[in-house]
Structure formats: structure tokens, C-alpha cells
């Protein structure tokens, strides 16, 4: 009888491999450490990130699912809600205690009901619709708000880069 965190992660992995959601692949990097996952997210259709495949890394805490995992894109991604170092800033990954931007309601925070799949789906929708009110990358938020064309150019460049072109 292993730890509950491990069991839950295994269950989620099984679920994700049996019914993979569209545009998302995720799983542990190695079978003997279920607390480090790798995920590939496809850029949502009809958005600036369409066509890109973005690798990310998920790190789960020992007390998962009571605490949220951390998510970090391992590729370059110019987006208002992604820190320049790749960390993802969405409310679903924050516990109600911490609020880096100071405006999220607790209703959209982490709770054990959330799962890897839900996190990745929220990230996909975040890619499609950046929230420039709580910017992790101020530069990107500014461009998104004021100079959409340049933002799209940069995004297109990242898409190309993510495909290794």
C-alpha cells in the first residue's frame, strides 16, 4: 500500500492514457518517479499559437492532491500569463492562501477535485485567451494589449521554434 499521492497520480496517469483529451499528452518522465511529469500541449486551433507543440514539466508535491503541482514550460513561450522562465501563472495552480496577483477569487483556486487533465485544459484555454489583468510577463501583456500584431509575430516565431523549424 503505497502513499495516497502516488496512487492518485497513477490513477490519473491511467485515466490520461486511456482517454487522452485532444491536444494534450502527459505522463511521468520515468516510471520510478511519478512526481515529475512531462506534458506536451498543442496550441489551440485558430489562435496565434495554432500548430505549435509546447513541452512542459509538472512537479507534484508529496502531499498531492492537497497541494497543487507546479507547471513550467520547458520551451520559450511569449505569453502574458507565463513567466519569462516558463512558469505558468493560472489561478487553478494556486492554493487559496497564496495570491501572487492579489485578485483571484478562491472559487477558481486549487482544490483536490482538480486534476492534471483539468490543469492542462485550463492551460490550453489560457493559451487561447490570455488574461492581461494579472500579467506574469508584463512585456507580453503590454504587447497583447497595445500591439497585437507584434504579439502575433512573436507567437508565430515561438510556434515555429517549438516545432524545431
Amino acid at each position, binding site marked *: *500500500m503505497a502513499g495516497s499521492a502516488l496512487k492518485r497520480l497513477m490513477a490519473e496517469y491511467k485515466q490520461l492514457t486511456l482517454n487522452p483529451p485532444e491536444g494534450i499528452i502527459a505522463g511521468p518522465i520515468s516510471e520510478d518517479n511519478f512526481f515529475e511529469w512531462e506534458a506536451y500541449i498543442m496550441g489551440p486551433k485558430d489562435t496565434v499559437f495554432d500548430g505549435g507543440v509546447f513541452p512542459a514539466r509538472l512537479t507534484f508535491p508529496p502531499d498531492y492532491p492537497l497541494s497543487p503541482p507546479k507547471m513550467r514550460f520547458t520551451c520559450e513561450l511569449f505569453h502574458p500569463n507565463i513567466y519569462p522562465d516558463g512558469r505558468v501563472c493560472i489561478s487553478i495552480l494556486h492554493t487559496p492562501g497564496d495570491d501572487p496577483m492579489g485578485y483571484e477569487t478562491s472559487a477558481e483556486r486549487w482544490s*483536490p*477535485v482538480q486534476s492534471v487533465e483539468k490543469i492542462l485544459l485550463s492551460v490550453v484555454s489560457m493559451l487561447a485567451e490570455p488574461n492581461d489583468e494579472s500579467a506574469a510577463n508584463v512585456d507580453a501583456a503590454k504587447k497583447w494589449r497595445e500591439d497585437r500584431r507584434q504579439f502575433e509575430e512573436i507567437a508565430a516565431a515561438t510556434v515555429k521554434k517549438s516545432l524545431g523549424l
Partner: protein
Amino acid sequence: MRSLLLSGASFALTAAVIANAYYQKKQFYPSVVYITKSNPSMAVIYIQAFVIVILMGKLLRKIFFGQLRAAEMEHLIERSWYAVTETCLAFTVFRDDFSPRFVALFTVLLFLKCFHWMAEDRVDFMERSPVISFVFHLRVLSLLTFLGVLDVYFVNHAYYSTLLKGPTVQLVFGFEYSILLTVVAMTFIKYLLHTVDLQNENPWDNKAVYLLYTELLMGFTRVVLYVCFMVVMIKVHTFPLFAIRPMYLASRSFKKALQDVIMSRRAIRNMNTMYADATPEELASGDNVCIICREEMTQSSKKLPCNHIFHTSCLRSWFQRQQTCPTCRLDVLRMPRPSATPAAAAAATAAAPPIAQANNAPQQLFQNFNGMFGGFPYAWPPVPPAHANGQPGAQPQQGTQQSVPSAGGTTTSANNNTTPAAPGSPPPFPPFSHLCPCFPPPPANLGGLSDSELRSMEGTERANVEARIYWLRDIQALLDGAMMLISQYNQVAATVGMSGIHVPPTGSQTSTAKDTASTKTKPEGPIPETNQAETVTTNTDTLPKVSSSVTSLNSPSSKSLEETLDFSGLEGATGFSGPKEMDLPAWEDPREDEHEDELHEVRRRRLERFSQEGKKKEDFDLD
């Protein structure tokens, strides 16, 4: 590769140094003396010793841990940097007895510390790993025994050397190793718990609780040790700067452990008392997967007031962090008791919530109403809920009695959102005049109120009684204010009358004709000589109205309150004195008709005087 090269170079250098010495001196002892006397050779030897220690460390690590995982390595490097800095700080404190032996002791300490951390990490890893091999158990057990034995040895050594030689640097080692001993103990207990958990097929609910208490105990021991160490060091040496960081960390983790234990206890208590066990039928119907651990619920599940069902243990560990339902985020602590426990629900009815609920609707209605009166700091008696107004059976003659329950209702609401003016402060003037047209308050039709609603408005709790007393004090303050006004008025009127005494009362006949005209022209009329008189002119005009409104505002409610409440019990309350008949100003007496006449008389005289003066002025102008 680089480290291999470096150690190889070091070995080569050492070999060269030894060969050189032996070549020069030909014999063992002279060559040893030569090496120890020559500084460059000694430097090489020291480097060699360092390399050997590192190699030893690597060997031990291979034996006890095998390959370190990336996270473990990261952790280790991060912690070692702090440890090295602290060791350097410790060197500054003990620079007097700085010697190679001393450095060697510190290096050993550093290495042992590293092994303790790695052991901790490894045991924590047990919980995360899907498969635990036999080798793992063997390694962890042997490592823990090895570390434990070494720690005990060093603590012993430090103890006896301190006894024999007095406080030296051994004191520091003694404390360091005893703290490491607590780490070993903690790791061992964790290991035992994890092992037992692994043997079991079912999840072991109490493991988390045991872990919490072990953590608390060890945290406490560590804090006590650090405090003792601090005190002793300050007494015999100097302030141990190098121990500040670990001490802070230890106290912080102790605080966290304490908090966790408290939260966990609260969570368990709530679990046991507040929520019902899920019945087998509830589990059987529909989806019975616990959303927290994603496993089927077969036994020991709890149902929250929002009808969501979870494993007891999952729910408990979640409640340790947050008191909300994981699914719908219902705040479980603020919820009324679930209907599943009728006894608890019945007990809850005695508490405040029902009253608050009963008052909610009227309160909201009155929020707007209060806004109409600007700064008027008194809440109106709440109107009964809207449906009461639709009651056709309401009789108009109820009017006078209606104020009784509504006043009672106000008292309960007054403590909710109104700040009663401090007793004794002058009552706000401007709102009065502007208030008068709005008076009396909207007819409170209580015919539609049910008995229970009335009772809840009446309220017998402390808060309600307090609010009532506040209310009465406010009324008293209002009355006092009106009294002040009246006495001022009387005074002024008297002085005016005195100064105007030379005016023959009979002369009024001539001025009466002008009476009405002068009233109209008064604002731009002749200016009175004294300032006092001027203020009175502006005030007095509204005054009779005010006083009458005060009378009508307060007397019904205060009197009705007097009827409802037994003032004998309130007499001793802070600053409270029940409104008594003799306290009432004379003009508030039922027989105030004569006063009415008196007021008229005063007014008439004043007007007379004005007209007189106006006439005089006219005469003067004509002249």
C-alpha cells in the same frame, strides 16, 4: 571526469612530495620531519587529505544510497552550502583553538550532516516510490544504525571532554551531534511508519496523525536544544552567530508542526461531531469514487452538509488545510448543522442565526430608507416583511400599538448596522427640521407577522437587550437635547422680555395689526441690537416645530417601551436611567396647553418688539 582528474593530480602531487622527501633524507623519520617542516609539502598533504575525505564520502554514498536522484542531489548541494558558510562562521568564533584537528572534526561533522539529510530524503522517497526493494530496506536500516552509533559516540565524547577540560569547542560538537541524533530518531520513526504502511493493503488512516505528533515532539526537542545551546554559548564564549539560521529554521518548523497538530485536531473533532457517516445506500447510489484520492469508497466515508461524500481520511487531511468542501467550496464551518443531526439543529435554533435571518429582510428594506435621511444616525424601526402589507385584515386603530413590537424589532437590528450617537452628545439639529415632513415613520403593519417572527424580533439575548438599552439612551439624549433647546429658548425669551419691559403691554393693540406683516418681512427686517438675540431669531423660528416633533417622535415609542420593558432591571445598567415622569420637561406634560399659550405670548411679545423697533427706525428714517 574533472573530479577524477583533480584527485589524480592530487595523488600524483602527494606521491611526488613523499618521494622527494624520502629521496633527500633517505630515512623514514627525517623525511616525516622534513615534510611537516616544509609548508608547501604540508599544503599538498592537506589537499590530499581533503581529496581522500571526499572520496570516502563518495564511497559511503555508493554503499548506502547508490545513485542519488536529481532532486536529492540538488537538495544536498543547497544545504551543504549553508552548512559550509556556518562552519566558516564557527571558525571565527573558535579562532583561538584553530588547528588541523579542529578542521578535521568540522569536516567530519559536515559529512555526517550530509548523510543525515540524504537519509531523510530517502525515507521521504519511500512514500512516493511504487516499488521498494529489499536492498532499500537494508541500506536505510544500516545507514540509520551507522549514523545513530556515530552520533551517540560523538555526543558522549563531547560530554566527557567538557566534563574533564571544561567548556571548549567540544560543546559545539556535542550540541550539533545531539541535534543530528534527533534527525536520526525522526527518520527512523518515519521509516517505521512507512514500512508498516507498505505492509498493509488498506490505507492506514492514522499514519498522518502519528507523523504529525512525531514532528511536533522532535521540533520541540530541537528548539529546546538550540535554546540551551544559545544560553550556554553566550555564557561561556560569545554569541554563536553560526547557530542563528538553524535555530530559526527549527523554531519555524516547530511552529508549523504545532499549527498542523492544532488544525488536525480541530478537523478530527469536526469530522466526528458535525458530519454524518455516509450510509451504505448513499455509497451504493451513483458514483462512489472519492474525488480526493480517486478510489472507491467502501467504508468510513463522511457526508458533508452539501451532500458530497469523501473518505474520512482524505477529508481530514484536506480539512487540515482548508475548511471548505473540495467539490463545491462550501465553507463547512459556517454552515448550519446538517439536517441529519436533528439534535444539533435543535440546539442551534437557540443561537443567533434565526434572529439574524428574521431581521434580514426588513434590514435591507431600511438600508435605502436610512439613506433618505442623510446623516440621521437612528435606524427606523424595521417594517415587517412585504407580505405583511398585503394583509387586508389590518385595522387602522392598531396604529398606536404597532410601535411596540416595531421598537422591539429595532433594538435587535440596531446592533447590526447603526452606530448609536454617544449619549449626552448634542442631537443633530439640521436633520430635524428636514425630517419633520417625513414624520411619522412609515406605518408598520405587523398584522402579517407570525408569532415566531415577532418573538425573534423581540429577542431576549444579551445583544438584543443591549441594543434596547442603547435605543433608550438615544431617546434620552434626544430629549435632553430638546430640553437644552427649550431652556435656551426660555432664557433668551426672558431676556428679550426684560429688555423690552419698557414697552407698554397695552401698546400691543397698535402693533397687532402689523403682526402678520412683520412676520413676513422679518428675515430682511430690522437687525436686533444683541448678537444673542440674532441667533435666537434664526433658531426660534424652527424651535416650536422641533420640540413638537420631538414630543411626537419620542413619547409614543418611549412610553410604549416603558410599558413593555421592566425598567427596574435596567436601572443599574451603565449610565442608564429610565425615563421618569418628573424628568420630562414641563412642556412635554400632557397639560402643556398653557405652555403653548406661554410660547405664543413670548413670540407675540418678540414680534411686537421688532415691529416697535421697525417703527422707530421708520420714524428715524422719516426724520
